[in-house]
C-alpha cells in the first residue's frame, strides 16, 4: 500500500482544483508547466522530500506524476473537442471591402503584353503626336499618294498629325536600335476622325515588328497563330488574305474564325450577322517594305522583317461581344465596375 504524505495530498487537492477551473488549451499548457515543468511542483517534491531514504516516497511522487500527466492529457482533448463545437452562423455576411476596377482596355493591354512577352517581344511606346516623316513619308506613303486623302487623320500642323496607326514606331525603333535584331511591340493611343458603333476618335493599337537576318513569312504566321490562340482560344483558326499597304510587301489581312458562329458563317440557318462567311478581320500585317527598312537606316539586302498593327478595342470587342465601341469609353461607374 502506498503511504500518505501530507505534501502530496496538498498538491493533489490543488491540482484537482486547478483542473476544474481549466477551460482552454492555453490553461492546460500553463498547468503542465506549473506541475510537470523543470521548476514545477512535482520536481519540487523530489527536492524537499527524503526520496533517498525512503524509496516509497519516490514511488508515491512518481505515481502522482503519472496521474497528473494522464489527467492533463485527457483534459487537453476535452478542451480541444469542446472548442471545436463552438458554432457560429457561417452565413453571416463578410465586411465589404471597397472594390475598384481596372479598365477593360488596361486589362486587354496587359493580356497582349503578357502574350508577346512570352515570345520575347520588348514593349515600347512611341509618340502619339508625330511628324509626317515617321507617320507617312518614311513609311513609303509619298505626299501625293491616295492613302493621304483618307480624311481620317487629325492634323495639328502642316507637318504634324495625331497618329492614326502605331506604325510610326517602326522607323523610331529602327533608329533606336540602329541594327537588327529588332523584336518589339508598340502599344499606344491612336486617333481617327470617325465616330460610330465601331469607331471612336481615340482608340488603341498594338504594333509588332520583328527584323533580323532570315525573317520570313512563316514567322509572321507563327506569331499570328500564337497570339490568336493565346488570346482568343485554342479552337480558333487564322488565315491570311492578300492585301495592300504601302509599308509592307507583301501585305496581308489576317482573319480569325468567328466565335459566334464557330466559323461556319451560319447561325440558325441564316447568315451570321457578326462576321463575313465565318471569318472576322483581325487586322493588317506584312513583310516590311524594303524602302521602309532603308528609311529606318537598315539594309534590306542584309535583313528582312514583318510587322502587324491591330486594334486593342477591336480584339476586345471580338472576344467579349460588346456591341458598341463607345460603351468602352463610357465613364458610367455602373459599367466600369462590372470588370
Amino acid at each position: 500500500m502506498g503511504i500518505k504524505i501530507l505534501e502530496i495530498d496538498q498538491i493533489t487537492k490543488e491540482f484537482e482544483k486547478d483542473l476544474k477551473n481549466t477551460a482552454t488549451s492555453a490553461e492546460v499548457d500553463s498547468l503542465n508547466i506549473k506541475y510537470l515543468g523543470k521548476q514545477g511542483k512535482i520536481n519540487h517534491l523530489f527536492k524537499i522530500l527524503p526520496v533517498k531514504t525512503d524509496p516509497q516516497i519516490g514511488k508515491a511522487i512518481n505515481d502522482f506524476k503519472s496521474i497528473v500527466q494522464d489527467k492533463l492529457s485527457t483534459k487537453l482533448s476535452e478542451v480541444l473537442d469542446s472548442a471545436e463545437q463552438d458554432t457560429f452562423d457561417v452565413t453571416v455576411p463578410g465586411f465589404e471591402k471597397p472594390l475598384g476596377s481596372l479598365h477593360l482596355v488596361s486589362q486587354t493591354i496587359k493580356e497582349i503584353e503578357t502574350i508577346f512577352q512570352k515570345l520575347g517581344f520588348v514593349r515600347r511606346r512611341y509618340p502619339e503626336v508625330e511628324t509626317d516623316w515617321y507617320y507617312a513619308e518614311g513609311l513609303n506613303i509619298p505626299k501625293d499618294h491616295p492613302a493621304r486623302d483618307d480624311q481620317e487623320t487629325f492634323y495639328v500642323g502642316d507637318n504634324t498629325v495625331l497618329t492614326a496607326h502605331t506604325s510610326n514606331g517602326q522607323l523610331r525603333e529602327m533608329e533606336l536600335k540602329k541594327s537588327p535584331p529588332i523584336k518589339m511591340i508598340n502599344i499606344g493611343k491612336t486617333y481617327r476622325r470617325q465616330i460610330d458603333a465601331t469607331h471612336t476618335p481615340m482608340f488603341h493599337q498594338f504594333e509588332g515588328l520583328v527584323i533580323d537576318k532570315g525573317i520570313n513569312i512563316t514567322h509572321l504566321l507563327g506569331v499570328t497563330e500564337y497570339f490568336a490562340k493565346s488570346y482568343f482560344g485554342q479552337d480558333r483558326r487564322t488565315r491570311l488574305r492578300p492585301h495592300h499597304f504601302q509599308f509592307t510587301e507583301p501585305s496581308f489581312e489576317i482573319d480569325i474564325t468567328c466565335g459566334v458562329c464557330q466559323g461556319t458563317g451560319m447561325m440558325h440557318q441564316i447568315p451570321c450577322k457578326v462576321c463575313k462567311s465565318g471569318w472576322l478581320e483581325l487586322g493588317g500585317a506584312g513583310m516590311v517594305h524594303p524602302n521602309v527598312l532603308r528609311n529606318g537606316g537598315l539594309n534590306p539586302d542584309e535583313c528582312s522583317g514583318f510587322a502587324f498593327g491591330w486594334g486593342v478595342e477591336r480584339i476586345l470587342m471580338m472576344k467579349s461581344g460588346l456591341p458598341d465601341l463607345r460603351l468602352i469609353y463610357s465613364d458610367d461607374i455602373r459599367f466600369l465596375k462590372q470588370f
Partner: protein
Amino acid sequence: MDIIISDSALRKFLDTPATAEILSQNISLCGPTFDRTKKIAGNYIYEIEAITNRVDTASAMGVAREAAAILTQFNIPAKFVNDPYQEKFNFPKNLSKQFHINIDKNLVVRFTAIALENISVHPSSKETMTLLENCGLRSLNNCVDITNELTLLYGLPSHIFDLDKLGAQSLTIRDSIEGESIITLDGQNNQLGEGDIVIEDGTGRLVDLCGIMGGQIAEVDEHTKNILLIVPVYNHKKIRGTSLRLQKRTLAAQLFEKQPDPELCLPVMAKAIQLIKQRSGGEASSSLFDYYPVPRPTKFVTLKFKWLNDFVGVIISQDTVVSILASLGFGGTIEGDSLVCLVPSWRYHDINIKEDLAEEVARIYGYFKLPHALPCVNLPAEPRNLLLETEKESKKYLSDIGYNEVYNSSLVSLSLIEKSGLDPSSFIRLSNALSQDYGYLRTSLIPSALENHKHNQGKVGGQLKTVEIANCYQKIEGRELPREISTLAMLSGEDYRKIKGEIEALLWKLRVKDISFKPSRTPPPFFNPAGTADIYSKKLLLGHIGSIKPAVLRKIGLLNNPMAIEINLADMVLKINRKYEFHPVPEYPPVLEEMTIDSRKSLGDIIETIQNTSQLIKKVQYINSFKGKHSFGISFGSDNKNLEQSEINTLKDIIQNRFKI
C-alpha cells in the same frame, strides 16, 4: 474597292466545274476576297473586295484570271477563256466621217474614239437588264448599257455621246477653268474648279466631266442616230481629285483613279463596236482615233529563286514558280539562278520589285500551305522600362483599394478648358477637329475627371473614386512635337486625409524617395490654393494634391467637393529608389508614448520638428487636434538598448521646449 459581279458574268471568262461556294472560299485565300455570296434565281451574286492596287481584278475578266490560277493550285480544273489580250482586232479604215480631237498635255494616258452611224436606240434585252441589275447598275438603253456591261466585264469604263448634239466636229480635252460648270447625266450642276478634266464641244459647251460622268447636253436618247464612242484612260490623280472634291464616287472614277491598263482600250473598243452592231444595228462611220502619246516600255523584274525561298520560308520548286507566274500572265526566262520576269501590261503599276513577285508566287502557292514558325531572335537584354512598370503597378494598386479606372479622350473641348480656368492658347489645337467636343489635346487629366464625377452624380451610392493614367501634351516653343507626359490623376469623394494616405501608400510601394507635401503657392488654376499642396520628391515637384476651386466645381456642375491628385509620372520615375538597402531588424522594441503639443505651426512642421529632435524618435503618428492642441503617438527606441523611462521623459521635455515661444 468593292465590286459586285454575277457568277454568270465571271464564267464568261472562266471555264471550271467549281461551284460558287468552292470558288468564293478558295479565291479569297489567295486573291481578291469574296466578302459575301448571294444566291438568286439561276445565278449567284458575289460581293468582291478588289485590293486597292489591283485595279486589274476589278472586273469579271480580272477575277476570272485570278480564279483560274488559284483553282489550279487546289487541283480543281479551271481555264481562263475569252482573254481579250489574245485576240486580234481590225478597225475600219479610210471612212468618210471626220472629227478632230485636241488633247492638252498630261491629261490622258490614252484616248481612243470612233464614230458610229445608223443607231437604233431601244430598251436592252431582258438578259442585259438582269446582268446589270444583278451587279447593282440601272439599265438605260441598249447603247448606254453596252458601255456599263463592258465596264463590269473588263474593268475599263467607256462613254458614248450623241454625235449630233455636239456643237462642232471638233472636241477639246482640257483642264477646266475656275468658275465653269457642267450639268451631268444625274441632273446635277457641278461647279468646277481649276484643273478638272473636261471635254468641250467646239462651241464652248462642256459635254463631259471626264472619267466621272457624262454631260447632259450630249446624252444618248431614243432619237439618237449617230454616236461618238470613247474608250479613254485619264490621268489618275486628276480624276481622284475631281471625284473627291465633287463627292462623285462613280464606278468609272474609282476605276480611272487606280490606273487601268491602256492596252485594254482597243479590245474594249472592238467589243463595243461589235455589240453596238449586234444590238442597235450601228456601223462605224469614222476611222479609229487613237492617241497614245507615251507607250509604256516593257518592264522586267528579276527574282532569285534562293532569295524567294528564304523570304517565303519554304522551298518552292522552280517549275512551280514559273508556272504560277505564267498563269498570272507573266512571261519570263531563267537566267542562272534567277527568273527574269516580263510584267504583263495590266500589272504595270503594282509590280516593281522582287518582293512584289514573291507575293504573287506565295499567295497563289497558298499562304495556308505555309508552316508556322516562331522567330528565334537573339535580342540582347533590355533595360527595365520603369515608366510602363510604374503605370501598370499604380493602376493595379489603386484599383485594388477602391478606385475605378477611367479612359477619357485625349481630345477635349474648348468649353471644358475654359470651365477649368486653363488658358486655351497653351493647348495644341487640331486643325481639322471632328467636332467641338474633340478640339484640343489636354494638358491635365483633372478636368475630364471632374466631368466623370459629374456624369455619375446620383448614379452610385457611396463616395466615388476614379483614377486615370494617360499622356498630357505640353507644347514646347520652337519644337515641332510636344512633350507627351505620362500623368496620374486621382479624384476621390472621400476626405483629404484618406486620399493623402492612399497616395503616400502608393508612393511607398513604388519606392519613390523622400516624399514631402508643402502648401502650394501657385497650383494649377483649377486647384483651390487655400487647400492644395505640392508633392515633392526631394526638390523635384511631382504634382499636386488638394481640393478644387468652388467656381470650377460650379461651372462643371459638381455638387460635392472631391479631392484631387495629379502627378507627373515621367518625372516621378526618376526618383524611384532602385537600390535595396538592408536595415537590421531592431532587437529592442520601441516604446509608444502619447504627447499633446500646443502650437500654431502647421501639423507638417510640428511633425518634422518632433522627428528632427532626436534619432531615438522612430515614428510620429498624428492622432487628432482639439482647440489648437494636437495629440501624437510617438515611438521612442534605440538600436542598441532598451530606453529607460527617464531618458524618454527627458526627450519629451526637449520636444515640448521646442514649441515654447
